[in-house]
């Protein structure tokens, strides 16, 4: 009843080409932003901010990166964690070589390094597809992780082999390092993720996004439309890796505080891929749904027995978590390959015609 587009006649193509053509969607978005920017920081406790929201947002950003490559362009990649690592290590190097420049500048710049490396490893994508491309990106994953371990220059010869985040400030307020409060870290991450999501959403709704999807759906026909496959695919690798890189840098600088090379291992690549598959391939909002499900659901499951007063051992809960999340992944692969985003679409469609079934 309330989710209707009746009466909202688009007077111009501009209005219809908008990313959110329906008024209720725009209101919904405004409410979400208000809650995220005002309500959560005001009322959220430290646990919610530091352990739930910050990781959720950072993983969502990484998922968007992978979605651009896998979901929109149809190029399967298993090297995304390594590209995140490139972002993290380059942000670390830059911030220690040039400590005078604001850390946020370096976090965003690290995206360009990741993009460069991504393009390099994306070169084989012209010749190989699908499973074989996945194997080629796997090579990137192992090679880059090897670099993170072996090239001690990358972690400034730190004997522990880890990168430790220096304390840095923005307008005199600590945003990285131990003295940065969860609220500041949350707000910084939120601002970056919101802006970058907006930009990504613009890209995928315009010419470039259509080019990517054309390459994904039917590359022969795409070529016929005058699309050159290599530049289109490399651009997807570049943008995707940029997002992964920034996400990786944020992960180390504003979430973990320090990281060893193993933080960027193949497990993270798979985790992000699962998020995108469960959330919805080729959907911006799906990236957030997927990150929420993979990151937040286990936290909820872990807290449930205690909240309900059930005497279940912690180890059992841990196993249950794996079971449930694993089961969900299989469920989505079989039942709804378009992920949560599609369920969301269906729900909206139902709302539109409610109370009638059609």
């Amino acid at each position, binding site marked *: 009843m309330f989710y209707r587009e009746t009466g909202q006649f688009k007077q111009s193509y501009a209005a*219809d*080409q908008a990313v959110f053509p329906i008024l209720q969607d725009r209101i919904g978005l405004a409410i979400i932003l208000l809650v995220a920017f005002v309500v959560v920081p005001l009322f959220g406790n430290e646990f919610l901010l530091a352990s739930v929201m910050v990781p959720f947002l950072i993983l969502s950003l990484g998922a968007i990166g992978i979605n651009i490559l896998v979901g929109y362009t149809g190029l399967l990649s298993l090297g995304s964690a390594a590209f995140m690592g490139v972002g993290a290590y380059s942000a670390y190097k830059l911030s220690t070589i040039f400590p005078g420049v604001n850390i946020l500048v370096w976090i965003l710049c690290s995206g360009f390094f990741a993009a460069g490396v991504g393009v390099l490893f994306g070169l084989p994508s012209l010749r190989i597809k699908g499973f074989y491309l996945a194997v080629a990106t796997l090579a990137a994953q192992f090679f880059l992780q090897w670099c993170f371990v072996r090239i001690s220059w990358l972690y400034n010869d730190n004997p522990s082999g880890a990168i430790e985040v220096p304390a840095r400030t923005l307008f005199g307020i600590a945003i990285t390092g131990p003295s940065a409060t969860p609220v500041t870290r949350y707000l910084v991450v939120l601002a970056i993720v919101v802006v970058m999501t907006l930009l990504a959403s613009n890209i995928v709704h*315009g010419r*470039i996004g259509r080019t990517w999807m054309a390459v994904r759906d*039917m590359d*022969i026909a795409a070529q*016929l*439309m*005058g699309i050159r496959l290599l530049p289109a695919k490399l651009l997807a690798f570049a943008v995707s890796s940029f997002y992964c890189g920034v996400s990786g840098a944020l992960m180390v600088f504003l979430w973990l505080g320090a990281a060893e090379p193993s933080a960027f291992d193949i497990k993270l690549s798979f985790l992000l891929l699962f998020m995108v598959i469960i959330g919805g391939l080729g959907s911006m909002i799906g990236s957030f749904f997927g990150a929420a499900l993979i990151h937040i659901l286990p936290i909820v499951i872990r807290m449930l027995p205690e909240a309900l007063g059930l005497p279940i051992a912690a180890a059992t809960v841990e196993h249950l978590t794996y079971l449930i999340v694993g089961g969900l992944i299989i469920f989505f692969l079989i039942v709804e390959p378009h992920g949560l985003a599609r369920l969301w679409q269906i729900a909206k469609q139902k709302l539109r015609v409610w109370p009638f079934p059609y």
Partner: protein
Amino acid sequence: MNAASETLLSVDGVSLSFGGVKAITDVSFDIRKGEIRAIIGPNGAGKTSMLNVVNGFYHPQHGRITYKGKTRPRMRPYQAASQGIARTFQNVALFRGMTTLDNIMVGRTLKMHRGLFWQMLRYGPAMREEIEHRRVVEDIIDFLQIESIRKTPVGKLPYGLQKRVELGRALAMEPELLLLDEPMAGMNIEEKEDMCRYILDLNKHFGTTIALIEHDMGVVMDLSDRVVVLEYGHKIADGTPEVVKADPKVIEAYLGVGH
């Protein structure tokens, strides 16, 4: 069409083989500006392969292609596209995950120039460009009478409509030479009539040159200015529909198919 009109495309002695299979053997023909040129022949005659040679998917082992006065040994598909050759496929090759509107918008790709920076902002020049091309696409949608399926993902459309959307996508490129590979295959009578009307309209009002592969002889005879007949990769006849229809070799090739 007047016989004096200039040649848009000419194919000279083209041979194409896949390993041992000879798909095309020493075929020559030309397409004049503004005509509807039919390519007919039994299954496996090499018709589709011929179109693939013309728009650069296949590179023939022998022969030359001259398009708009330029002779070339080989060409990439995107070069063909940028020089005004558009194409539909025998088996619909739409972008299945995208809507009708987006599919046709992809046809405008070559005419859109705003780069990543403006696309990212989707504002100012990028938005103006998007709207300008949306307008062109809406004209095509009107022309093909597919307004109601604008926002429908094409994978969900019935076959006949998919073929129509594919034509729309090709039209969005504003082609000089339009290659249609069995645009009416699998359609019912009404859909066929619609499709014929679109093809004639395009040719008459926009002067689009059309190369058409079609099995329905009635359609071919009605629509085309000239017909080239292939059989087992060889050209066996070439001329106006009347001449071709009376050719004994053609009658032989089509014997039992209603002639």
